[in-house]
């Protein structure tokens, strides 16, 4: 009986996901504090910074997908932009986590104790945190403003309760003009896309590239935001596949949606690898010791060279070979597994970029229980945030009503 009723009206158990997510987040906080109190606080801060960058980029990249769909007037994506919007729930958490990064500044920025040869005008803690903090506030404000208009278009007038709904959809009873919402959504979408490119470039330069203050790559900013879109699409595919598995056809997601977003994911897998190679080949040709030392440390000295090959295989070679096939893109379970492996690969890529800078030799090579638990904590925070958003906006996980019904409401 119970099973039959369940199948007739499937729903996302958002409350349970929020609870489990919060428990995992608590576990992550405990692991972080325990590692911090142990002999090597550096290890805790390194894991924290990697996770902050990876999970924030995931949310920023997923929301970028919604903005791109709106700005390009795409019609193929169906319910995917609505699901992508749910990642905006991680924005406030990301901002809070950025404030925590400030607390670990002494452990995170090796250049604090170095002679910067004139770069101190740019690389100093007050200026760095001010510009990055302002950048994140602007990016997230534009993201929420865009999502607000996008949701008004998708859902219409607010008929439910809750502060988040009132904040994003307006108070219940307020009418919305679809034409003005559309115009505003497109303008805000463009602004979000521009801010995304600028702010993620800034974060890439300040929080990753600056860890080796004497190494410079002008392409590093673009590499950072392309990578963020890549993992944002990966996270969105995981969410969409989970929703499809749980809700079936009632969510409005079809094989064609998965095939199309799978193609986009494949394209950004190629673009990410292209940006990686474009940086590498210029350094290789230039052969300037200031530039090559960064690459040699990471690709030719153990254990980083093994990690570099692992990242290349997991984030490019493997998905390239697999995603050539159309059918696998439409299999939700398979795509969840593949995207999870790629996201883990990008986590390792952050370790590869930051580890050698934060600890000389192999001192920064930390992959163990503390890193696993801290990562689980971030996963829990993301899952809880997304589930909370979808709980407040259940329309996003349901197939859109026919046009005639929609206009009548």
């Amino acid at each position, binding site marked *: 009986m119970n099973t039959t009723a369940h199948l007739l009206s499937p729903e996302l158990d958002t409350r349970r996901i929020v609870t489990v997510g919060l428990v995992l987040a608590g576990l992550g906080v405990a692991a972080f504090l325990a590692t911090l109190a142990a002999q090597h606080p550096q290890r805790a801060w390194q894991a924290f910074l990697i996770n902050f960058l990876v999970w924030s980029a995931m949310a920023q990249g997923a929301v970028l997908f919604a903005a791109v769909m709106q700005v390009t007037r795409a019609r193929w994506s169906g319910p995917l932009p609505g699901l992508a919007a749910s990642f905006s729930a991680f924005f406030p958490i990301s901002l809070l986590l950025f404030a925590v990064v400030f607390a670990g500044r002494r452990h995170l920025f090796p250049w604090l104790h170095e002679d910067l040869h004139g770069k101190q005008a740019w690389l100093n803690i007050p200026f760095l945190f001010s510009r990055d903090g302002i950048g994140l506030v602007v990016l997230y404000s534009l993201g929420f403003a865009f999502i607000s208009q996008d949701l008004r278009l998708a859902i219409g007038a607010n008929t439910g309760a809750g502060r988040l709904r009132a904040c994003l959809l307006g108070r219940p009873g307020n009418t919305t003009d679809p034409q003005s919402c559309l115009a505003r959504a497109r303008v805000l979408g463009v602004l979000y896309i521009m801010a995304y490119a600028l702010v993620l470039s800034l974060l890439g330069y300040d929080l990753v590239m600056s860890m080796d203050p004497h190494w410079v790559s002008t392409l590093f900013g673009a590499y950072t935001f392309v990578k963020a879109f890549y993992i944002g699409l990966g996270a969105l595919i995981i969410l969409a596949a989970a929703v499809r598995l749980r809700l079936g056809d009632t969510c409005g997601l079809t094989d064609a949606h998965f095939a199309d977003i799978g193609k986009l994911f494949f394209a950004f897998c190629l673009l990410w690898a292209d940006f990686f*190679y474009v940086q*590498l*080949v210029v350094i*290789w*040709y230039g*052969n300037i010791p200031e530039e090559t030392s960064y690459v040699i440390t990471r690709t030719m000295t153990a254990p980083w060279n093994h990690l570099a090959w692992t990242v290349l295989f997991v984030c490019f070679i493997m998905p390239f070979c697999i995603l*050539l096939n159309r059918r696998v893109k439409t299999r939700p379970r398979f795509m969840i597994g593949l995207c999870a492996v790629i996201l883990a690969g990008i986590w390792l890529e952050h370790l590869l970029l930051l580890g050698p800078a934060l600890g000389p030799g192999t001192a920064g090579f930390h992959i163990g229980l503390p890193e696993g638990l801290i990562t689980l904590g971030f996963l829990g925070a993301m899952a809880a945030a997304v589930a909370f958003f979808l709980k407040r906006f259940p329309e996003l996980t349901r197939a859109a009503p026919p046009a005639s019904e929609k206009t009548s409401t």
Partner: protein
Amino acid sequence: MKKSADALHQHVMGLFRSEDQAAAAIRQLAQSPWKLRRVHSPVPSHKIAAALALKKSRVGLFTLAGGIIGFFSGFGLAIYASTQWHLIVGGKPVVALVPFVIVGFEFTILFAVFGNVLGFLTQTGLPTFKRLPHYDARCSGEHFGILAACRPEQHRELAEFFTRQGGEPRIFDAPSPTRGQAP
């Protein structure tokens, strides 16, 4: 079996202005005793392709094979050319794989395109210099044409079928036995 297939000498084409009606007619035709010979579409149509329920095209395999051959050919050519000179330039190794990726990549794309074109030509039987039998020039304009074959005594029934589906039927003369059948 062969006898019954050979008996379908008469060809009737249904001409449709609507893509949806043409797709529906194709689906209905599959459940009828008549034989679907050919479909002409003035534009690429996913609906028509879905209604035809064709087997997956092999053109992609030709493209993939071309790409793989190109990848190894590109690296092979670059390595072969470098080893013919054995000159160390700028302190770089003679066989330097990092810059050879560019040659490998370009050859991958080039040979994939060659494979694609070759696959397209071989799988579609192009080029053909024979005039297509039972063709209506309106299919090059704005009509979807569905060509079906039936026994000579059934042609009116088949024409009515196309009319019921919303199309305009055109009955072609039955070919003489020496001219053979439509592909």
